[in-house]
């Protein structure tokens, strides 16, 4: 382990130390990693110079795991064990996956999220995604020459709580410290906004491999305020491939195809779609495993006809977002296109006709999300140049609670700026009722059965009262990642219940721990080493944060005894960290906790100072008018 350097009090080296932070676009079809170097965002390529990593994972019979190009090339030969577009299964039950029957996978219904049966056993989509993230993580660490301090991972804006939680779990499994989950369209806007120093209302039309997002933002001198977001989490470029595939099987009257042929034909369909971007017609030809030759000519006109309804489907969410933001098309200053599928000429034409203006396409639609995420990661890590960026995002779907008659009472409406907290009072239904069950749901429909179920929890120990007398306040808190926690409290007695919304769709901590150690014989040892490593990372981050803060305004905000008290705890923690003793887990945790406690007062004074600064009208450059 590298030795940690500790500067003399007051001469901390920390404030200007560059922290290694990356942005990761974990896409349906491919994934990328980017970082900010010397003030500019750049995508980090693999050692052969390729930026994109196909989001394909193959589990080989010998236990090896292939990720990326190699896995993609082998997809047709080993369809059961080659997982393509795993993002579509994140946080999803089998009933949510519309075309599950035609996919070459063996799905297993598991509580909350499907699993996939492979030669490597039953795998959760979270584990498969973690394999992709691990590859990107080591690519970044090799390229940047050090351990990452954190990552921003992008998710479709229209991802619900379960899908976000699954993504965060995958990152944790891959050993990444998640600085923030960032909405993909917002990431794209950052990449564009900072490049072009734009001001005004901008829209992002993001058609990825498996998801469609549409966001409206107001850009004001470094502030990115999302006004509304909408989308369709089951509509993407893959569906355009499938339209070609269906056309082929129908016009050529192909018999029912096995998994290998399905995979091969879908690949041919994708290639044909890509060729039609530059050509008026293209030939599709391949030989199936049965020896049957598939050969057809697909013209652009036919393709447009085949995909007309898919394309039209994207404009519903566009109109909805405009309504939610109370905006007319004419008020939009620019439209950014994101996602490989937006290269299709008929799509560009449709967008141009809808907005009465040519969309912005000067950044590579495949890379723009990762670049924006890298800029945000750089800012969150506290690196220089990040202090001009401020992002105000929203939740995409309303959060509510089930009430009598199976109806959803919305507590936080969609497009609320996050972080957000809202409370609602409920009461008892029967005399002497001592417990209450809560069902937390997400979605716009009135009927709970048509919304996504996020969690159920109980509040017990309510003192018996007549019906309607108890006052139970349910509070929803959504953090800056868009993740929800819920608490319920009986107002007169203070009986309380709290839940991080996780159990029904995310993975429990025990499951994660199990995955972390799976397949390793000395699981116990490994678990301990891992816990130690996590504790070391936490300790290092806290030391870093504290030293930075002390150097910034410790002298100003702390008295001499207070200053000394914090430094004693810094030294104690730093010493333990330097010793790096494998048995020091508990003492390391205690020392971290002690430093945390010692900085409580300092932290609130710093926040007070922030408030004063904001209220005094002393404006920072980026928001000056």
């Amino acid at each position, binding site marked *: 382990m590298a030795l940690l350097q500790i500067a003399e009090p007051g001469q901390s080296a920390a404030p200007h130390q560059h922290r290694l932070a990356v942005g990761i676009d974990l896409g349906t079809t491919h994934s990328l990693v980017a970082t900010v170097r010397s003030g500019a965002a750049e995508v980090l390529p693999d050692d052969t110079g390729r930026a994109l990593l196909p989001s394909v994972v193959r589990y080989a019979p010998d236990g090896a795991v292939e990720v990326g190009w190699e896995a993609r090339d082998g997809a047709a030969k080993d369809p059961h064990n080659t997982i393509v577009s795993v993002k579509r299964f994140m946080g999803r039950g089998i009933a949510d996956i519309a075309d599950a029957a035609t996919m070459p996978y063996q799905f297993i219904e598991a509580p909350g999220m499907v699993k996939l049966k492979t030669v490597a056993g039953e795998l959760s989509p979270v584990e498969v995604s973690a394999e992709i993230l691990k590859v990107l993580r080591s690519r970044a660490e090799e390229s940047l020459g050090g351990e990452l301090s954190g990552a921003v991972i992008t998710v479709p804006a229209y991802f619900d709580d379960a899908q976000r939680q699954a993504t965060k779990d995958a990152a944790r499994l891959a050993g990444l410290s998640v600085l923030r989950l960032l909405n993909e369209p917002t990431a794209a806007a950052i990449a564009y906004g900072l490049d072009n120093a734009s001001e005004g209302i901008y829209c992002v039309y993001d058609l990825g491999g498996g998801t469609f997002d549409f966001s409206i933002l107001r850009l004001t001198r470094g502030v990115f305020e999302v006004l509304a977001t909408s989308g369709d989490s089951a509509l993407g470029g893959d569906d355009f491939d499938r339209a070609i595939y269906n056309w082929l099987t129908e016009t050529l009257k192909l018999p029912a195809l096995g998994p290998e042929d399905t995979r091969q034909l879908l690949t041919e369909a994708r290639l044909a779609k890509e060729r039609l971007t530059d050509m008026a017609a293209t030939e599709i030809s391949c030989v199936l495993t049965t020896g049957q030759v598939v050969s057809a000519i697909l013209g652009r006109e036919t393709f447009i006809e085949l995909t007309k309804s898919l394309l039209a489907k994207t404009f519903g969410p566009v*109109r*909805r977002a405009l*309504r939610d933001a109370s905006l007319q098309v004419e008020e939009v200053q620019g439209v950014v296109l994101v996602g490989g599928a937006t290269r299709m000429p008929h799509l560009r034409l449709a967008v141009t006709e809808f907005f009465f203006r040519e969309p912005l396409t000067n950044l590579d639609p495949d890379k723009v999300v990762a670049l924006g995420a890298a800029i945000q990661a750089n800012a*969150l890590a*506290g690196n220089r140049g990040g202090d001009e960026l401020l992002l105000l995002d929203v939740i995409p779907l309303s959060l509510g609670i089930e009430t009598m008659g199976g109806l959803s009472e919305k507590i936080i409406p969609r497009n609320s700026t996050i972080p957000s907290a809202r409370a609602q009072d409920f009461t008892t239904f029967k005399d002497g009722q001592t417990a209450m069950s809560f069902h937390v749901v997400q979605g716009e429909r009135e009927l709970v059965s048509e919304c996504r179920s996020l969690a159920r929890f109980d509040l017990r120990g309510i003192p018996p009262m007549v019906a309607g007398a108890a006052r139970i306040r349910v509070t929803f808190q959504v953090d800056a990642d868009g993740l929800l926690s819920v608490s319920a409290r009986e107002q007169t007695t203070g009986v309380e219940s709290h839940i991080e919304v996780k159990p029904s769709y995310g993975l429990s901590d025990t499951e994660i721990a199990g995955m972390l150690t799976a397949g390793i014989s000395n699981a116990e040892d490994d678990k301990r080493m891992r816990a130690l490593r996590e504790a070391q990372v936490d300790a290092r981050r806290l030391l870093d*944060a504290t030293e930075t803060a002390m150097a910034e305004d410790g002298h100003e905000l702390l008295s001499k005894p207070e200053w000394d008290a914090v430094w004693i705890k810094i030294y104690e923690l730093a010493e333990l960290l330097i010793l790096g003793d494998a048995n020091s887990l508990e003492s390391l945790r205690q020392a971290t906790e002690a430093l945390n406690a010692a*900085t409580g007062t300092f932290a609130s004074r710093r926040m007070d100072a922030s408030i004063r*600064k904001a209220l005094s009208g002393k404006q920072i450059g980026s*928001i000056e008018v």
Partner: protein
Amino acid sequence: MLGQNYFELFGLAPRFTIDLNSLELSFRRLQAELHPDRHASHTESERRMALQLSTTVNDGYRTLRHPASRAQCLMSLAGKEDANAAVSPAFLMAQMEWREAIEEARASRDATALEALSRRLKHRVGMQEHDLAAALDERGDFAAATQRVNELRFYEKLRAEIDDALDALDS
């Protein structure tokens, strides 16, 4: 840490008529200092406080931006939030007419009609705000204000209904 008076927080005089631009400016200025992203690399206690404060700022911004909640906020500052107001028969009549018009447009899946209703409603809400400003800022007539706020809330519901109907046509 921020106190409860949203008008003070955003540096505005406690009046119904406010300058939305300066509200927006204060909002951005506050979030520029308090948003969790600004404290992401700081200690856990600082991050927790940032989450709370930023949440409060968002809540205040939402409260003041929307006329009905802004009026409510003013009345509660004045200790007049419980002023009772009877609903006028004329307004009840108007409610029924709106409902029928929306239902008819929804049933016949007529987007143009729904959009026309939406525009009419916007106009109606504008007039309502004007009345509210007069009641609160000029006359200090809280009973009238309460009545206008209740009506405004009803119009907000109507607006949501129209939007829902349009959403349904789009999906």
